[in-house]
């Protein structure tokens, strides 16, 4: 099965969720800043490449986990993906998870500073602070996804 976590840039919240899913981050405690900073693709995918799927790793059941940024085309791209899934009848092979709902204002501001204003150092730290604040929500979301696909 393929699990796709998507957010605006595909580089902050979706990466965090994918890292929790693949076991790179713990579920029982909030990770330190450097742990989040060291994640693959974290704050590294440029805005130009929004729309590409990036392989993140495999979970215990060998399901492939991907991250995706959809920018402002979130609804349109989601509709396209859904119609391809319907046409190809691969409903049971793909799980698309929206990580937007866990975003807080701090992460949005940090992402804007890092990606739009190109002030990477302050932006990245603000994003990490915001993600740590809502970390438990991401853990809950990933646990739900895992339950749905029958892992946890």
């Amino acid at each position, binding site marked *: 099965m393929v699990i796709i976590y998507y957010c605006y840039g595909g580089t902050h919240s979706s990466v965090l969720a994918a890292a929790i899913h693949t076991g790179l981050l713990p579920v029982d405690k909030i990770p330190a800043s450097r742990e989040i900073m060291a994640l693959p693709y974290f704050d590294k995918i440029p805005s130009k490449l929004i729309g*590409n*799927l990036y*392989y993140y790793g495999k979970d215990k059941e060998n399901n492939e986990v*991907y991250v995706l940024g959809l920018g402002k*085309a979130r*609804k*349109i791209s989601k509709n396209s993906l859904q119609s*391809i899934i319907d046409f*190809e009848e691969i409903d049971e092979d*793909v799980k698309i998870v929206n990580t937007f709902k866990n975003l807080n204002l701090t992460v949005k501001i940090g992402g804007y500073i890092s990606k739009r204003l190109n002030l990477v150092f302050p932006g990245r730290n603000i994003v990490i602070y915001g993600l740590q604040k809502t970390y438990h929500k991401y853990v809950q979301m990933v646990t739900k996804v895992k339950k749905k696909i029958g892992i946890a």
Partner: protein
Amino acid sequence: MKIIFHDKNASILALFAALLYLEKKQKYDFKNIMNKTMLKLDVINNQQGKLIYIGSDQDNNTIYITGRKRYKKIVCRVIRSFHKVMKLRERPVYFNLSPHYNNYMRISILSGKIKLPYFLQYYFIIRGIKREFFKLDNQIKDFKRRVRLYNWL
């Protein structure tokens, strides 16, 4: 292959181009196509991005139309990379119809937005398509040749 005709709104132009590709279209035979497909376009206009299946050509390539607003690059990338990841048999090929928009079509879209009667929208879009017909026809023939070559390779 999955051939996707796309423009901002999945308009009659996209549908017309798809039917031209399928050679189901006689020159200027607009009334039939509109009557048959308005319902589909209504559906897609409420759900931008959704692919609408139009038919298959003689090489078994499937033909779709879609409206992707201003996000051509993102939507195309998403579809392409999703096909790669899922290892789907049919690869997507795109035909962008935005360069074929002329002022008649823009007026038609505008009249739809300000809710003028339908017949006015149709009148302008058909005038627009008639104006663009030969250019579009040539490009689609060329595109078809390339698709066949690609299939053959």
